[in-house]
């Protein structure tokens, strides 16, 4: 009966998809996730719409989610009748119009602009997408729909096996069997700590009390992490289906999706998706005639990082300040409004339909010994191919950074990768062989976290990075535990002093001592892990701390108090460009005289370095060095280098 109802829904969905996308009609797909929009996707959409209308070209225009190639946004794909789908990257409105005109009118696909064929075979020299370095090393199973379906249309999800897992669970499996399957699959929480999901469900299922609640944690607050946003924007039903199955296994009839308010598009997608699922009776009362009821309201967060912590999140849903409380009792015993509650991350729930549909044996083939399945990461920072990627657990970091991401741009040297957000740490180049799974990352002093990976190169100062994260945790500390509230503040002050060149050697030991206190004396993960960025930077980059403390210099030329800008007297041509551009009026000199910077006025904004014509290369940024310059502006060519004992500064980078 349940299976039959699903078959009917599925047949109708497939028929609808076939009518919407007849094979004899051309189709244009535009990626309009938040990233696509930020990169100018809406302008491209408008240009295409205008072109189609003006030239009366017949074609379907489809807005899709994100395929993960954020570095190539805006993305536009063209499917000509009975031809494979061709993807184009970095599309401007002009180029989009050209592509539409040449492609749809004349069948000319401009292979020179194409990224890939979204199919298995090459075409006109365009490689299939699976051969692009960005995709070749990935294993996309959770993200299989992203960029392929219109996230606003439930039928497109259903036509690709959507809600099949829910049907299977309701029709063929007892709640215990569903739970056992998830346990056997070895799935662990994708939100950070990696607790076995099936076990977590069991605690809640067997706990005394009713009603029971299941919550989807979509408070993706880690700066540098956006995989949950992209997933929900591109394929919201995967997450909803996972949540319904979780509720069935646990015996809950009420769920919540707690989503951060900074994700407006994701909220729209979720609301749409929930309404559509309800309309097809895949959600609501008596789902598919199974007798199982489940409802999901959406709760919007209000901007507090700590609400990603389970007990704080529940306090926030209850309308109170999001402050964590001691555990036990664990949410499984006493959670939302004192009732047994299960909380799973978006990424965890998105794995559930796969496990139920394909089985635990299939699922656990992929991954490492203790970390099964795949993990989605966001690759950002100093990297050529930024984006979001899905790889098997246990993939070496180097494969993610270099094979998929292409390493830092412009041949710069890779320095470190930050994983796990403010709770994680910085892993140095020497440890790039590390396989990414829960245990290895923890051993290295970092954590898996939600999956943000920020790549840093030689221009990034690791003391500054530690200071940056402490600024974040310090302002996001809820204030309940004194070691976290005051400890992070004191740590931040010390790091600020080191960055200003006022650090002393004993500060390093003091920081390590504070790290221990804050970590041991805090109730929740925020405080317990806040020291990780400091600990890992001291562990792997102690020389940079020493350079700031002993040498009063910042080797990466990043810490403003420790850097100076000089106009090189033997190179300056007296053109005056820097003087006119300087926002602080700190540069003096007439035309054809050597310009000089008044260091008492200089705000170190770097504008002079940016504007100095590369053929002169006359502005230098240095740290811990003094470059001799004239006292007063003198005519160009009259500066005698030999008279000065000028040495090439060690940490000098000239434009």
């Amino acid at each position, binding site marked *: 009966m349940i299976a039959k109802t699903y078959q009917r829904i599925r047949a109708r969905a497939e028929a609808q998809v076939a009518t919407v996308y007849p094979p004899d009609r051309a189709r244009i797909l535009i990626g309009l996730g938040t990233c696509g929009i930020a990169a100018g996707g809406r302008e491209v959409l408008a240009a295409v719409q205008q072109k189609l209308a003006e030239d009366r070209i017949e074609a379907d225009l489809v807005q899709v989610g994100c395929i993960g190639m954020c570095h190539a946004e805006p993305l536009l794909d063209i499917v000509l009748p009975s031809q494979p789908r061709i993807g184009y990257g970095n599309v401007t409105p002009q180029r989009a119009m050209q592509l539409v005109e040449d492609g749809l009118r004349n069948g000319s696909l401009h292979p020179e602009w194409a990224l890939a064929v979204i199919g298995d075979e090459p075409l006109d020299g365009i490689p299939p997408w699976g051969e692009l370095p960005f995709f070749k090393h990935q294993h996309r199973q959770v993200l299989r729909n992203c960029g392929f379906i219109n996230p606003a249309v439930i039928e497109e999800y259903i036509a690709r096996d959507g809600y099949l897992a829910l049907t299977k669970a309701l029709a063929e499996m007892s709640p215990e069997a569903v739970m056992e399957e998830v346990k056997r699959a070895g799935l662990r929480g994708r939100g950070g700590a990696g607790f076995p999901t099936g076990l977590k469900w069991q605690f809640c299922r067997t706990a005394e009390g009713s009603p029971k609640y299941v919550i989807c944690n979509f408070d993706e607050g880690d700066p540098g992490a956006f995989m949950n946003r992209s997933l929900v924007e591109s394929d919201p039903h995967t997450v909803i289906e996972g949540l319904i199955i979780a509720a069935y296994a646990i015996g809950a009839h009420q769920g919540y999706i707690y989503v951060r308010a900074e994700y407006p598009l994701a909220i729209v997608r979720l609301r749409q998706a929930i309404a559509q699922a309800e309309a097809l009776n895949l959600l609501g009362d008596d789902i598919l005639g199974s007798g199982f009821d489940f409802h999901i309201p959406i709760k919007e967060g209000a901007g507090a990082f700590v609400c990603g912590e389970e007990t704080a999140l529940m306090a926030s849903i209850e309308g109170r300040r999001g402050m964590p409380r001691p555990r036990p009792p664990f949410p499984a015993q006493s959670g939302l409004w004192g009732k047994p509650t299960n909380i799973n991350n978006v990424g965890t729930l998105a794995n559930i339909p796969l496990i139920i549909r394909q089985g635990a044996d299939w699922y656990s083939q992929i991954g490492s010994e203790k970390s099964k399945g795949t993990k989605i990461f966001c690759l950002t920072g100093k990297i050529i191919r*930024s984006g979001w990627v899905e790889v098997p657990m246990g993939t070496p970091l180097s494969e993610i950074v270099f094979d998929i991401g292409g390493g830092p741009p412009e041949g710069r040297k890779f320095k470190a990768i930050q994983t796990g957000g403010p709770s994680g740490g910085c892993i140095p180049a020497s440890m790039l062989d590390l396989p990414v799974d829960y245990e290895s990352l923890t051993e290295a002093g970092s954590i898996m976290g939600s999956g943000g990976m920020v790549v840093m190169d030689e221009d990034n100062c690791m003391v500054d990075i530690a200071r940056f994260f402490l600024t974040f945790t310090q302002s996001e500390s809820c204030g309940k535990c004194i070691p976290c509230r005051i400890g992070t503040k004191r740590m931040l002050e010390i790091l600020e002093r080191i960055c200003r060149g006022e650090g002393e050697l004993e500060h390093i030991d003091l920081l390590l001592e504070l790290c221990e206190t804050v970590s041991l004396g805090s109730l929740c993960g925020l405080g317990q892990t806040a020291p990780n960025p400091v600990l890992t930077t001291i562990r792997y980059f102690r020389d940079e701390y020493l350079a700031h403390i002993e040498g009063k210099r910042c080797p990466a030329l990043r810490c403003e108090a420790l850097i100076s800008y000089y106009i090189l007297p033997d190179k300056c041509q007296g053109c005056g460009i820097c003087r006119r551009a300087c926002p602080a009026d700190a540069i003096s000199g007439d035309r054809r005289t050597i310009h000089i910077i008044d260091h008492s006025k200089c705000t170190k904004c770097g504008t002079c370095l940016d504007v100095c014509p590369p053929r002169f290369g006359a502005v230098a940024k240095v740290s811990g060095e003094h470059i001799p310059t004239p006292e007063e502006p003198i005519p160009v060519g009259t500066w005698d280098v030999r008279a000065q004992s000028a040495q090439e500064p060690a940490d000098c980078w000239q434009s």
Partner: protein
Amino acid sequence: MDPKLQTILAEYDRTRRGELITLLQRVQGELGYISEEAIFGISEALDVPTAEVFGTLTFYTQFRLTPVGRHLVRVCRGTACHVQGSQRILRRVVDFLGIEPGQTREDMAFSLEQIACFGACSLAPVMVVDDDTCGRLTPDRAEEILERYQ
């Protein structure tokens, strides 16, 4: 009392105390900020102490106690933006607008805020003006964008 506020508050009573945050979001959505009058009104409607309303709303960064300018400029201070030089973007925006983060210009044209992360990290550095996310910024491009809103 502001009639819009009155209409919203009329829907609430003490049985809906758990919806304090949702109510604050609705009020701010309507008024643009949480006024003093609104704090007292919410306290009365839900029958929770004024101090609790104030304590809760100041706990969350989303809520504002002062009216917001016609354009809201939010500069991202996330990790990816930081390593790509968001400080320089912020500095230029501060210079251009003449206000610090958390402030609103006297002519009410702009408010400036810093946000933890928008999740558009691969386009860092990022700023959001009203509802438009602008990525891959340079200081010059940030200024050009703001000029359009003048």
